[in-house]
């Protein structure tokens, strides 16, 4: 689509875009180097001994589980214990050492690098906040809207461009992390990732797991970027959009955790539903009644649609004055 090509051109004729890309490169290489030089090698016997240690832990965990069997308040803890026990038993049975007994390898590095997505969110929020608001503040919106193209198409093209840019950043971070990881740490001699789903342990290829981890962790990025896009369109003010979105990016989950102490409706809050990876691993940050992958996806979809409805209503209905 021509309109997306236009937005892409406007994005990539700006120095700031290249600064963002450069930052991604620097961060990935930087984190890789720091990890490399602070790395502690597991001694030979430690990697043999994981079995001994795990067996001891298992005995302890099982006792613990027995003691809280009938305690209703400890349901969450019980689930965690059950999960850990199941995975540990599976490891012993199939001789798959846990990741903390592995030497650093590209897969562990990729899991470390997932945190970089929050950092990328800042960039995509800035781009999303600017892409509409800057047209207004520069006055170029006037020349943009007097073309034989509907406002809806213009806004859609802008949103698609933001999403493409986000995909580019996350993709770049992933591929770069992979390359850096392989170069610095190698593939390592490792078994599959183990997931606990519906009472059974499932094996998953490490590359698939890493990619899944990256994409599911990007859901938060997508939601906050969409929100920044909405605020930017509604208020035509990029600083406001950047401010609110980054604030929520940093504080959102903390607030949600605090709120969850006082009332139940917290499960309808956007941030309580961002941890989709938790449903895959069986390890949830916010554990609420009725929480499931489907439930979270529905909530996210509702927010997503809501953000877009607001953005489109404002963009198509409002007059362009001054």
């Amino acid at each position, binding site marked *: 689509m021509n*309109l997306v*090509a*236009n937005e892409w051109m*406007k994005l990539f004729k700006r120095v700031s875009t290249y600064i963002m890309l450069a930052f991604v490169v620097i961060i990935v290489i930087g984190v890789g180097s720091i990890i490399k030089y602070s790395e502690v090698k597991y001694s030979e016997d430690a990697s043999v001994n994981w079995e001994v240690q795990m067996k001891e832990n298992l005995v302890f965990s099982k006792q613990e589980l027995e003691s809280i069997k009938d305690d209703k308040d400890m349901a969450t803890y019980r689930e965690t214990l059950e999960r850990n026990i199941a995975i540990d038993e599976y490891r012993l049975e199939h001789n798959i050492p846990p990741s903390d007994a592995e030497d650093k390898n590209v897969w562990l590095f990729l899991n470390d690098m997932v945190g970089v997505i929050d950092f990328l969110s800042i960039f995509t929020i800035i781009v999303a906040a600017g892409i509409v608001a800057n047209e207004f503040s520069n*006055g170029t919106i*006037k*020349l943009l*809207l*007097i073309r*034989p193209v509907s406002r809806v198409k213009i806004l859609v093209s802008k949103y698609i461009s933001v999403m493409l840019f986000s995909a580019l950043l996350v993709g770049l971070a992933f591929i770069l992390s992979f390359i850096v990881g392989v170069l610095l740490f190698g593939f390592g001699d490792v078994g599959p990732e183990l997931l606990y789903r519906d009472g059974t342990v499932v094996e998953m290829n490490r590359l698939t797991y890493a990619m899944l981890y990256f994409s599911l962790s990007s859901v938060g990025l997508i939601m906050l970027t969409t929100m920044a896009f909405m605020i930017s369109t509604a208020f035509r003010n990029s600083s406001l959009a950047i401010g609110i979105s980054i604030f929520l990016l940093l504080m959102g989950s903390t607030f949600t955790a605090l709120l969850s102490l006082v009332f139940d409706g917290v499960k309808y809050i956007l941030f309580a539903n961002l941890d989709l990876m938790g449903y895959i691993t069986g390890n949830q940050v916010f554990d609420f009644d009725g929480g499931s992958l489907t439930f979270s996806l529905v909530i996210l979809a509702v927010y997503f649609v809501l953000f877009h409805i607001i953005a489109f209503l404002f963009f198509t209905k409002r007059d362009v004055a001054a």
Partner: protein
Amino acid sequence: MGVTVSLQNVSKVIKGKKIIDDLSFDVYSGEIFGFLGPNGAGKTTTIRMIVGLMKLTEGDVFICGESVNKNFEKAISNIGAIVENPELYKYLSGYDNLKHFARMSKGVTKERIDEVIELVGLKERIKDKVKTYSLGMRQRLGLAQALLHKPKVLILDEPTNGLDPQGIREIRDYMKRLSREEGMTVIVSSHLLSEMEMMCDRFGIIQNGKLVDIQSVHDTESSIEKAIHIKVEPIQQAMQIIQSSFEGCTVEIVENEIHVTVEESLVPKIVKELVLQDCLIYGVENVAVSLEEKFLQITGNGGQIQ
């Protein structure tokens, strides 16, 4: 001459205030139509409604027969416009700006872009970033983007704002050329009367959101009444001569000149009579009733914003 732009009972209410009140007029192909009014009269609002930047509260605008309300994309494809200053993407080159807008209209070829660049005389600097351009060059680039898709109607809002005399003249020449040679309709808004007088064929005067008057510039030029200032001595004698010989014309003494308003054909006769009566004529000045005076008459004391 066909009607290209037609405003029909257009009104605009912003926050309960009627900014534009029942505005209707037609503009024909091949003419330069001036849109005149004091600041705050609603010129820019009207232009924004024509190009679809603002929604109409009531009424409709037809561009080449297409309704802006119902069929915006079709209607707007006949329009090229600069609304207020030509605000382009400063971080893009002139060429990228044109490419950007060319992609948004159908059928604008690479050749057409080059042709337009040639037309506005920006060939040398087109690869440079717009932020290095002077205001005059930006105005030219603005014009170039407005002409890309060969529109039938060109709308320029305050096109000469902030330009030097040379730039103003260039814009004027372009507009004349486009309307004469390509039969384009040009709508220009301005509060500079002398400007309008020089470039427009017709102009509409708007005040407080209402259309006060539509006039043809040529009406003023061919008006039968002429105002003449004559510097003559002795002044009292000359006054009497004119009053006695030419009845029905208004004569008055202002400072040391005689101001006469007469039919144009009488002017040489007055001069001849004065010479024959041994009056010393130091100068005869032809003062056209300027658009400015007309404008001030019509809008009443400079058009107060209420």
